């Protein structure tokens, strides 16, 4: 305490300005590469994407213009509206399922296991994140297809065949393959950050197991839960592989609609409209969840 005070005093009179200047510059320099990367490969493409939505296509060629017709055409078209509702529904259901499956697992990993076992489980969850998702969805297709592993096994047992591919079951299996490890990890890390003595204090003050969960654990990791939910939603909403491989693009999601729009007549501007709409919805979902989970974190003001 005293030593630190002396240090500050020693710096201020002589080289105060230079040091303060360095202090402001250094983080900027360190953060610059990532900032430039984000600018070049996210901000600029998004701006370009927005610009394109106003362009025109004439004889399969893009032409710069300011035409609101693309927006009008897409937003009022039935396929777009259906795909929008369907995609939102799919993403919401998949996120809910994901949270319901991930939370108990994360709770057990973070609060119920020994240090060593916890480290093993975390590694076990990280590895799938680094293996190819497309490959896994393709594998699911093989497993679930009419001639796939499940049906062949059923036939061997003399049981009737089941139609697994296409529909909500296979789609959710695919989306959970994508989201479950990530969401479980986010919740695990959030729960690991909870001060254990808070949970003990709650027990000590007469809270039952359920009350500890609802009154202390969940409020304590509110922003972690929000982040996990929004991540599940974001990943499911924008996914392309699962709907294509596991439901055969039927009904189409917004991602599939983008591809179809480009393929049929090089309608880049209209595809861009769908893309921008998706970004807006994701941004809205993100902001809403942030608002809901951070609202009371700052306390009474």
């Amino acid at each position, binding site marked *: 305490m005293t030593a630190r005070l002396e240090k500050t005093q020693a710096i201020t009179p002589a080289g105060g300005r230079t040091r303060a200047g360095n202090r402001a510059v250094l983080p900027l320099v360190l953060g610059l590469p990532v900032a430039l990367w984000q600018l070049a490969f996210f901000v600029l493409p998004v701006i370009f994407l927005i610009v394109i939505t106003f362009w025109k296509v004439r004889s399969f060629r893009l032409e710069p213009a300011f035409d609101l017709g693309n927006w009008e055409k897409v937003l009022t078209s039935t396929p777009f509206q259906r795909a929008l509702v369907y995609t939102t529904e799919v993403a919401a259901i998949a996120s809910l399922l994901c949270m319901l499956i991930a939370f108990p697992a994360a709770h057990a990993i973070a609060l119920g296991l020994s240090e060593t076992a916890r480290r093993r489980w975390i590694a076990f969850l990280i590895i799938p994140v680094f293996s190819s998702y497309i490959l896994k969805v393709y594998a699911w297709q093989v497993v679930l297809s009419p001639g796939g592993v499940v049906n062949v096994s059923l036939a061997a047992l003399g049981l009737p065949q089941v139609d697994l591919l296409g529909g909500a079951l296979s789609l959710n299996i695919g989306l959970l393959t994508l989201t479950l490890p990530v969401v479980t990890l986010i919740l695990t890390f959030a729960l690991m950050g909870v001060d254990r003595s808070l949970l003990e204090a*709650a*027990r*000590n*003050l007469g809270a*039952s197991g359920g009350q500890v969960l609802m009154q*202390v654990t969940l409020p*304590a990791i509110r922003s972690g839960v929000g982040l996990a939910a929004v991540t599940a939603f974001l990943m499911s909403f924008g996914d392309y592989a699962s709907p294509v491989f596991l439901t055969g693009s039927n009904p189409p999601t917004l991602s599939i609609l983008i591809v179809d729009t480009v393929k049929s007549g090089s309608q880049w501007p209209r595809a861009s409209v769908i893309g921008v709409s998706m970004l807006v919805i994701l941004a809205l979902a993100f902001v809403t969840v942030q608002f809901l989970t951070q609202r009371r*974190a700052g*306390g009474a003001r």
Partner: protein
Amino acid sequence: MIDPYVRLEALDMRYPGHHAVKDLSLDIAGGEFIALMGPSGCGKSTTLRMIAGLEQPTSGRILIGGQDMTHVSADRRGTPMVWQNLALFPFLSVEDNVAFSLKMRGDSPASRRRAANEWLEKVGLGGMGKRHISQLSGGQRQRVAIARALVTQPSILLLDEPLSALDAHLRVHLQTELARLHRELKITFIYVTHSQSEAFALADRVVVMADGVIQQAGPPRAVYRAPVNGFVASFMGMNTRMDGSVAARSDGMIWVDCPEGRIAVPDTVAAGPGAALSFVIGADRMRLLGGHERAPEGHPTVAGRVVGIEFVGSTQTIFVASDTGRDFRLQRLDLGDDAVLTPGTPVTLTWDPRHAWVLPHP
């Protein structure tokens, strides 16, 4: 003690590779302020956590108010605790923190609010109920933690080093507050601390633990003046321990041969000639002999040199290394003569032999 309120019967707690509490039995009277003290790892916190039901003893029984609580879960024990790190809920207001246990048992919002604010008033935080925990100072948070534990009007309060995170000034202030609460509420306080001064200032009875075993239990004064063994003597700190062998017995005194000479101590133990014997002399019982002053007949004298002086307000502790190489401590009122007691100054120590205490178990 005819009717103990809390009874710990042969409590044993084993963790893999660590035997934290060994066959511990202790009776605590209703309304008693008892302090469990000892160095870290001595088992005092584990004992407290077992009373609260946060740890399940490997064997033994815990009775509270005559009821066997050993297998009752923590949320049904009615043994609220004040945590060292306070463990206040950061996402709740001050009022909601205090009212937490009332909400858990299903009281109505109105009565919860009333009770919480009543308690906030009692701990000197009236009108702060709507504030957020992060807006309070360390001392105020401490008071919230105390109010939160007491709001259900329990018959027992557990405190796990509740003041150790505070600065010295606040600590003394809150000690007074805790003593007042204990006087007014007349409930049982079980207080875990490693601080001798806290335990002595507050407790009716202190329990000194080491290595999972109770070394000594008794009123602070008795433990301080009459430690049962070398561990308790050195844990109490403010004394000098001497060792020697028994030379003779006469007139209710034992004469002990020490490197410092033949020294008399009260005859309180059965020890034959030649037996090894240890005794302690409280630092406040020691005296410095003046320049030409002679020690009274029969009072031992030890020559040495001043090593250093420490001030604690109006008292000072003088550290002396004897010519025989032993460290002596002397505590007295600050006489303002420290200018002549610089390190290296030769001095002669003396004490009344009746004030020496022979350790029953070295």
